[in-house]
């Protein structure tokens, strides 16, 4: 005899311990099983695209810091690349290398939070995330040394970076790069083979390869599904074509694959930073750019491989000092497209874990 059940609606969010901000999942549950799920956005909508139309090209850079606030450097980089494409500015060699170093450090920092938060969502009580925040603090210290801020860096400029690195930066970075692989190994020992994590994450929240491509997923979500697609390799920007690194991919696209891909990407980032430090040339860090940039009429799109996926800026210029239109391709928002398909039929706990494994940042989703 089948038990007669009745579905009920449960709002997970907007204020909930594991929605990573103010995301709301309007779930229809049948007991513990998620029957339907509708994501609701907009609690952090600040209209950054509209605000950008009112600011000078340089004045938009602080706004981009506030998009994905866990990866401000990457946002800065994507934006300045777009402006440079639009205005035809050249960038000194040293600045390119500094940008790569910063972007890769930022990737490690963002992935640390992503993995930590995912494990926290799986119920590992605070331990992994605290260990990972400890390492992230070291990266933030380095950023603080370079640009004086720990979260909203505002470091990249059109035509280079705002400051050259101080003398004590490279020794400190060297120390960090030498230690980091050991810490990544420690994270692996902590939970990689943990039976409970395996049973919670393996085979759960599967995003098939075809669907991942079809929903335009990006970053670790796409690669976790087994697609070898990384803009650093596919369409190298800055000086990424000069470094050797691998693209880690998953096999089935479950939560565990996404978690593993992030861990492996951290190792690859360390590898890139090592090479960039060796190759770092001397020279200027910023080319001559007018105080108020007036790019010619036209449009430009620049994309980078941000920690969360493909981050793109589409700028339209009307030859004034402010962008006519600044559209942002936000990876976090687009990665959420398939969330409903991924969680339907799973339990509430799996929905939370799957959501955590996608790794979004509400600042970027809602803009």
């Amino acid at each position, binding site marked *: 005899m089948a038990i007669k059940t009745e579905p009920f609606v449960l709002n997970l969010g907007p204020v909930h311990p594991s929605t990573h901000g103010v995301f709301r999942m309007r779930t229809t549950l049948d007991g513990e099983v998620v029957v339907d799920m509708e994501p609701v*956005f*907009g609690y952090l*909508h600040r*209209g950054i*695209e*509209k605000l950008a*139309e009112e600011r000078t090209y340089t004045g938009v850079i602080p706004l981009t810091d506030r998009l994905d606030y866990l990866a401000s450097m990457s946002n800065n980089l994507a934006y300045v690349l777009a402006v440079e494409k639009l205005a035809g500015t050249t960038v000194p060699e040293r600045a390119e290398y500094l940008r790569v170093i910063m972007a890769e450090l930022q990737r490690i920092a963002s992935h640390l939070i992503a993995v930590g938060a995912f494990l926290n969502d799986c119920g590992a009580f605070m331990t992994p995330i605290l260990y990972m925040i400890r390492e992230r603090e070291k990266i933030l210290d380095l950023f603080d040394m370079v640009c004086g801020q720990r979260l909203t860096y505002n470091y990249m400029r059109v035509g280079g970076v705002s400051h050259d690195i101080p003398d004590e930066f490279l020794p400190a970075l060297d120390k960090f790069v030498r230690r980091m692989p050991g810490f990544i190994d420690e994270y692996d020992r902590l939970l990689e083979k943990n039976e409970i994590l395996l049973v919670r994450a393996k085979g759960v929240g599967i995003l098939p390869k075809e*669907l991942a*491509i*079809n*929903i*335009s*997923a990006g970053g670790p979500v796409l690669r976790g599904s087994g*697609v070898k*697609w990384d803009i650093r390799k*596919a*369409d*190298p920007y800055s000086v990424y074509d000069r470094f050797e690194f691998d693209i880690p991919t998953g096999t089935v696209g479950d939560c565990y694959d996404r978690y593993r891909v992030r861990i492996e990407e951290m190792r690859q980032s360390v590898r890139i930073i090592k090479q960039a430090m060796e190759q770092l040339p001397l020279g200027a860090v910023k080319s001559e750019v007018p105080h108020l940039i007036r790019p010619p009429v036209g*449009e430009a*799109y620049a*994309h980078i491989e941000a920690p969360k996926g*493909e981050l*793109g800026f*589409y700028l*339209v210029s009307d030859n004034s000092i402010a962008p*006519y*239109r600044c*559209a942002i*391709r936000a990876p976090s*928002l*687009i990665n*959420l*497209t*398939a969330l409903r398909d991924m969680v339907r039929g799973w339990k509430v706990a799996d929905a939370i874990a799957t959501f955590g494994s996608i790794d979004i940042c509400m600042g970027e989703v*809602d*803009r």
Partner: protein
Amino acid sequence: MTVALSGQEIADKLDKQFPGGIVESSQDSLVVNSEFLLMVATFLKDTPDLDFNYLTAITAVDYYDYFEVVYRLTSMEHNHSLVVKTRCYERANPTLPSVVSLWRGADFQEREIYDLMGISFDGHPNLKRLFLWQGFKGHPLRRDYW
């Protein structure tokens, strides 16, 4: 390196297939008549040597006279990309066909455009405001919104 395909070359190919479908083409992009959009998109996605299986982004720009919706397509197989644009001249109730049936990645982005630009997409399964609440007056990303 992702090869940005020339809009003109693709336009030549498409012109035979869809007479009158291409409004304009340049090195960077091609502009498609909005009535032909879905057909062109299907062709671009399904033709093996084009194979645009990945829709990178959709954006809309308000040029006062018309709205321009920009589709940025990528083929992961051939590693090339193409920019397809379409225009919508009506201002009171602009409508375009939706491409969600081809690329589900368009889902939230079309909703976002509907929300902030006010362009409705025919055939979208769940066309609701994305960021702003139901009943919000106006569409903030239009240039005449203050």
